[in-house]
Every structure is written in C-alpha cells, then in structure tokens.
C-alpha cells in the first residue's frame, strides 16, 4: 500500500472482520443502494481505511453513499449498517480473539 495515497479496496476484505459475528459468509449479502438504487453485494462495496484500521467504511460502488461501518476493537466488533448513526457492539467469542 502506498503510504501517500491509500486507495479504496473492495468488500472482500470485510470477510475477515465480519466472520466473527456472522454465521454465514457476509460478503455475498446483497442490497440495493437507497440513494442511487444500484444493487451490490458486500463484496462489491468500496472499502476505505483498510490495512491499519481500526475503522472500515464501506460505500456504494455507484454513488459512494455510506453502506456500512465496522470498527474492530480487541474483544469487540462495532457494526453500523446503513448511513445512519447507532452502531451495534458485538462481543467477540473468545476463540475469535
């Protein structure tokens, strides 16, 4: 990763952080953007903030509207789906820590 400009990656990189709180692989989950109506899977979102973390921002690949935020904290995962406020904090199972 270039230190001077961190490009966005795609939602495939969310598979690891989200695997701790989902029983099925979440990257195939599908939605239609409420702003531009473009359909996409979590795997197709444009994800900013990867690598160093802790906050990951997933955006619609069509219009860049906010689709989810995930914050990986030791022992917890914060997950905000959609573009509003009010994330859920999931405790991570001990085996996932």
């Amino acid at each position, binding site marked *: 990763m270039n*230190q001077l*400009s*961190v490009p966005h990656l795609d939602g495939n990189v969310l598979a690891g952080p989200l695997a701790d709180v989902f029983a099925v692989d979440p990257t195939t989950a599908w939605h239609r953007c409420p702003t531009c109506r473009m359909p996409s899977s979590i795997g197709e979102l444009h994800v900013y903030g990867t690598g*160093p973390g*802790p906050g990951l921002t997933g*955006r619609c690949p069509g219009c860049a509207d906010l689709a989810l935020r995930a*914050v990986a904290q030791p022992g917890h995962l*914060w997950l905000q789906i959609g573009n509003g*406020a009010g*994330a859920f904090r999931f405790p991570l199972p001990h085996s996932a820590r």
Partner: protein
Amino acid sequence: MSGFSPGFRGRTHAFEGRLPPGQYPTESFPVLSAGPTPHVPTEDWSLTVTSETGESRTWSWEEMTALPQQHPTVDIHCVTRWSKFDTRWSGVGLDTLLEQVESDAGFVVAESYDGYTTNLPLEDLTGNKAWLVHSFDGYPLAPEHGGPARLLIPHLYFWKSAKWVRALRFTTENEPGFWESAGYHDHGDPWREQRYWND
C-alpha cells in the same frame, strides 16, 4: 513471548517520551480517509459557525485568510498508531472564529464537505490549542490531507481534526460523530489511549 511470529516488533519500539502509548513514529504523512476525496475550490469554500439558538456567522475564503494567522508546529497522533513530530501548519486559531458567535453550549460538532462529522467539548477547542489550517509545511493543504482547510487539534487523536471542514455547530448535548457513533472514543486523548468507546 506469544510464541507466534518471532522477531516481529511492530513499529512501536523507538522514540520514547514524545510518543503516546501504542504509537510509532513516521516520517511520511499517511492518508487515511473514510471515502472519496472531495475537491472544493476556494472560491466555493466557506466556513459557518452556528450557535445552539441558530445564530450564525459565515466566512468566505478571502475573509478567513484575512483574519490573524498563526503558525503552529505540533506533534500529531493518529488512532491507526502513527505519530508525526514537528508538523508545521498555518491557519486561524479557533478562538478567533468561535468568539464571533454568542453561545452557552458546551460542545461543538464539526461538519465536513464529505458528510463526515466529529464531536468535541468546547474546552478542547479554545485556549489557543486548536486551529482551522489551510497550509502544511509552507504549501497549500492538499485535498487528500483535508484541503482547502481542515481542523488541527493536535492534543487529540487525528480523527478529531476533521478534513474538509465547512461548519462548526455549537450543541448543548454531546452528539457522537461519524466514528464516535461507531465505537471510537468520545474524547480521544492519545496520552490516555482513548481509542475506543470504553477505553
């Protein structure tokens, strides 16, 4: 010893004293963003300060740059663990801007051109320790670093120094911002390692 990855040290082992806990020093200036970089021409730029009663004051780019300018040299600390020493900025002290609007509120929400928000206690913005900056190292602030103008609040983690800022809104309640509502600490003091909500 964890038994895993022998000899891996991370980058936290140098620069004692000026380095908050869990940070490593960097010479480069990493860019961390939560979305595409907005490009705001200075002729379209403005900054608005609004009180809790709705009273507001707006500065154009010319008006802002005509205010008394300061040139802070400060250390900055990002929650992604890098710290950068002796960074040189130019801009306007937030005392100068905030005193132009009458308010009894104790908190401020900073709002940016890309929709980003962050919340701050007023006492962290006053007392000559926070700025609206428009140049870095003697050059106009690049868009990827928050240009044309960003906040500079070096005593807090750098996510509080909102890039592309366009408004400061006084609030009587503390209103969590973009990251604060998703698990980041409300205050974000790097010396107390206030990274997450319950740190």
